């Protein structure tokens, strides 16, 4: 029995969250310190998992299994492969930086951090669960705190609407997948929810073709797939900064990841059959998302729709079912997570000071928030897919894989690169450069040290990964190999 590192990672946030609830509401300092410590610990452990994962062996590692409901063949089974290891790391990063960014929350910080940490447990749980039932279990745990976090601490104008919309969309998606999963459970005849066994259940092609769309799309709702993406920009905008970061940075990956793990990996024949049209959905995501982002006047909505566009690339990478595409999608999930966390943090920092997000009313922020501006520009370059930044490492293989299978779609999708460059540069220009409206003179205070540390951390990661793709690509590749093996050949 080795050190149960995965279950410790999964339950650290939960334990910390419960611990935080034991404090008195006005012990704000202690609450924040506890939160920061727990988040740092979780990040540390996820770095250890990332480094200790043996790429040369590949497959599922750090396996742990505990009986939970033996009557139905449910066990608490954890394990990570090359696809999930980067995502665990990403969650660790977003969690720590999320706490750093939320340091200044004054309204009921006790509940805020407790809910945020329960959410984090759900996220870690989904990424490391190898049991289908537990995957759902953690998936739902990741969804409901979102409602509270948005509705209580969100943007006052849209929070009630956006929070309910988000929760209902995600819940509908997950229960549709759940029905599919239960049907899989009985159809397999194995009486187990263990995904390692279900991978080899050999469902009939008819069965796979019938149920794949339900399972895949149900999860893909959380990945923001068109036409079920509508909840996501509203949710992003209404959420408080740290929650937007979690939401766009990690939660949307949850959907994409679960769609891959449950949809594509358990029903490979269905995937091959249905990807023909799912590729079009992803295409709409990419191009439509980019165009919609361009016409937004609200700073945060621009980023919200850019997430829709970028998550479309992940879906597109999956849909190619090629090694390049899948690898790109795997890296894109990580890269986009870090990038979008920075974006939303930057938006939050600007908004906290300017009290407006209308792009036309902002300007000249670089003078007072230089570090925010630099971070935002670096993230912009990532988002455009500039070589030398992590976005390139992610997007280039996706387009390569797409080119190999359907060159025409690759050409159309490439339009989005231009559009992305257009809107993101426009935002950079309007918000950070140009003339600062006089009403902001003297009102824009500097950001604190924790914010600075978070910004630097994100930039280092994005540039580091851009310059040294080998820091992540080999991990993802081992995961992709396994996926391809399940898909048969290639």
């Amino acid at each position, binding site marked *: 029995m080795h050190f149960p590192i995965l279950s410790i990672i999964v339950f650290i946030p939960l334990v910390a969250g419960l611990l935080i609830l034991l404090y008195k509401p006005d012990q704000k300092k202690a609450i924040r310190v506890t939160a920061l410590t727990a988040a740092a610990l979780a990040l540390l452990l996820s770095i250890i998992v990332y480094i200790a994962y043996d790429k040369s062996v590949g497959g599922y590692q750090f396996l742990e299994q505990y009986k939970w409901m033996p009557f139905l063949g449910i066990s608490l089974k954890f394990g990570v492969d090359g696809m999930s290891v980067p995502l665990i790391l990403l969650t660790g990063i977003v969690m720590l930086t999320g706490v750093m960014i939320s340091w200044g929350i004054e309204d009921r910080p006790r509940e805020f951090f407790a809910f945020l940490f329960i959410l984090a447990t759900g996220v870690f749980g989904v990424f490391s669960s190898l049991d289908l039932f537990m995957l759902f279990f953690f998936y739902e*745990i990741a969804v409901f705190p979102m409602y509270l976090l948005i509705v*209580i601490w969100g943007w006052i104008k849209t929070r009630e609407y956006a929070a309910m919309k988000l929760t209902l969309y995600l819940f509908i998606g997950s229960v549709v997948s759940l029905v599919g999963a*239960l*049907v899989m459970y009985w159809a397999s005849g194995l009486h187990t929810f263990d995904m390692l066994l279900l991978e080899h259940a050999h469902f009939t092609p008819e069965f796979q073709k019938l149920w794949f769309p339900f399972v895949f799309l149900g999860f893909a709702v959380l990945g923001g797939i068109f036409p079920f993406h509508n909840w996501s920009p509203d949710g992003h905008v209404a959420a408080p900064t740290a929650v937007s970061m979690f939401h766009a940075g990690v939660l949307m990956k949850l959907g994409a990841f679960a769609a891959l793990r449950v949809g594509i990996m358990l029903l490979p024949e269905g995937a091959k059959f249905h990807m023909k049209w799912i590729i079009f959905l992803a295409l709409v995501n990419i191009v439509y998302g980019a165009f919609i982002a361009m016409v937004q006047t609200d700073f945060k909505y621009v980023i919200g729709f850019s997430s829709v566009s970028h998550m479309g690339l992940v879906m597109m990478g999956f849909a190619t079912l090629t090694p390049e595409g899948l690898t790109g999608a795997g890296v894109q999930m990580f890269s986009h997570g870090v990038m979008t966390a920075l974006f939303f943090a930057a938006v939050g920092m600007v908004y906290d000071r300017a009290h407006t997000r209308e792009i036309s009313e902002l300007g000249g922020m670089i003078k007072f928030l230089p570090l925010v501006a630099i971070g935002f520009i670096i993230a912009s370059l990532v988002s455009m897919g500039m070589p030398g930044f992590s976005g390139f490492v992610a997007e280039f293989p996706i387009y390569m894989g797409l080119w190999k299978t359907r060159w025409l779609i690759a050409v159309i999708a490439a339009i989005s690169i231009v559009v992305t460059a257009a809107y993101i540069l426009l935002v950079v220009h309007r918000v950070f450069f140009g003339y600062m409206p006089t009403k902001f003179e003297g009102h824009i205070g500097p950001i604190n040290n924790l914010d600075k540390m978070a910004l630097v951390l994100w930039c280092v990661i994005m540039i580091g990964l851009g310059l040294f793709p080998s820091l992540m690509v080999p991990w993802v590749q081992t995961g992709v190999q396994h996926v391809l093996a399940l898909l048969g050949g290639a």
Partner: protein
Amino acid sequence: MSAIAPTTILAILPEILLLVLGILVLIVDPFWKKDESRRAGLGWLTAGGLLVIFAASIFLARPGSEPQPVLGGMLRHDWLAFAFKIFFLFAAAVTVLFFVDTEQLNRHAESYLLLLAATLGMCLMASAADLVMLFLAIETTSIPLYILAGFLTQDEKSAESGFKYMLFGAMTSAVLLYGLSLAYGFSGKTDLLELSASFASFSPLALGTIFLILVGLAFKVSLFPFHFWAPDVYEGAPTPVTGFLSTASKAAGFAVLMRLFTTAFPAISKNWTWILAILATLTMTVGNLIALAQLKDEGNIKRLLAYSSIAHAGYAMIGVVAFSEMGIASAVFYLIAYLLTNLAAFGIVIALSRVVGSDSIAAYKGLSRRNPTLALMMLVAFLSLSGMPPFGGFVAKVFVFTAAIEKGWIWLAVVGVLNSIIGLYYYLTVLKYIYLYRMEGENEELHPVPLTRPYALALAVLTIGVIMTGVIVAPWVRLAMNAASGLF
């Protein structure tokens, strides 16, 4: 007169002890009557007594692997009976704790006595294996509950509630009795096991009989379209009684339904499962939709919970429809989880309305600032009701759907799933009142909602129970599986 065997005494130990406790309460009452400060003692005595019975039942009245006929086959001592009995005892103990600080209920020994009598009836319902015993058990349960529902004689709504409950109850009891007498007429037997021989093959008359019996039981568990009594009765009755009605009494109805249908009519199950499936669909949908409508104009939370509890009967029924060992087990598990959760929800309603004097949803504004702990408990209860992990409601729902899909009831599972989305909407909306909205023009800090000792104790136990059924699932499932396997 032959001596009663010790095994028989152990089998009906909970019932015997309940009777003893009831007599004890009656004896003590006149001595404590004068002393105002001792009134609470009566409640603590009853609650403590129930706890002792609860513990004694768990340790002494545990059934063997084979069902044991008791008193000439009038009762059956098996895991199904055992599982339900201990939860009835638990629910009764919690309800007594809720009584303790409720004005008027705690002034009289009668309220405790009636509750004990109803609990006794429920225990008999869970184990009755003979038509006559069954009917007697149902009446033993119902009559005290009629009185309890109308216990607040000064309150018009309560009086209406009790009266309405009695009228509807008497009517459906008559229908049930008619069905039972038909069943007897067919077979000349009253023993459920022997009855099954006469229902071995389908005949329209057999189906008619089943339908009549079903009407009577559907009333008890408030299935659509026999649910009309529930909202009015739930709203008018003293809230602790409502909590008891909506959980233990409903579960007792299910216990009878499960035992009767699996023991007496298994051979023609194909002919009645579809009826139950349709009733379950309608019950869930109607219950949830009307619960949704309660949100308008910030309605009454007790009414909302009443309709939600109607919907929950529909979910539990999905397990019965599956008509398999797993199906029954999932229904039993569902009822366990639901019992804990709904009692918690009503407990919170009681605790709050005691302070603010209102059952309107609007009264919940700012609760998270007035009492964060109570708000958290409400969060747990409502999320569990909506079927979110890591609470009992999630596992229960998935379990029920799993059982349904095993037997090919995919559409029913889909209906259940869609319904849980409606449910989520209104549960979350109530949570919004608690966490988001503020009291108008008031500082919440100045309006705390203190919990008295019995409430704090009961709610803490219930909240832990709700979390336990969702996190450490295996023991509860084992209990439910044992209960189900005795029937097949």
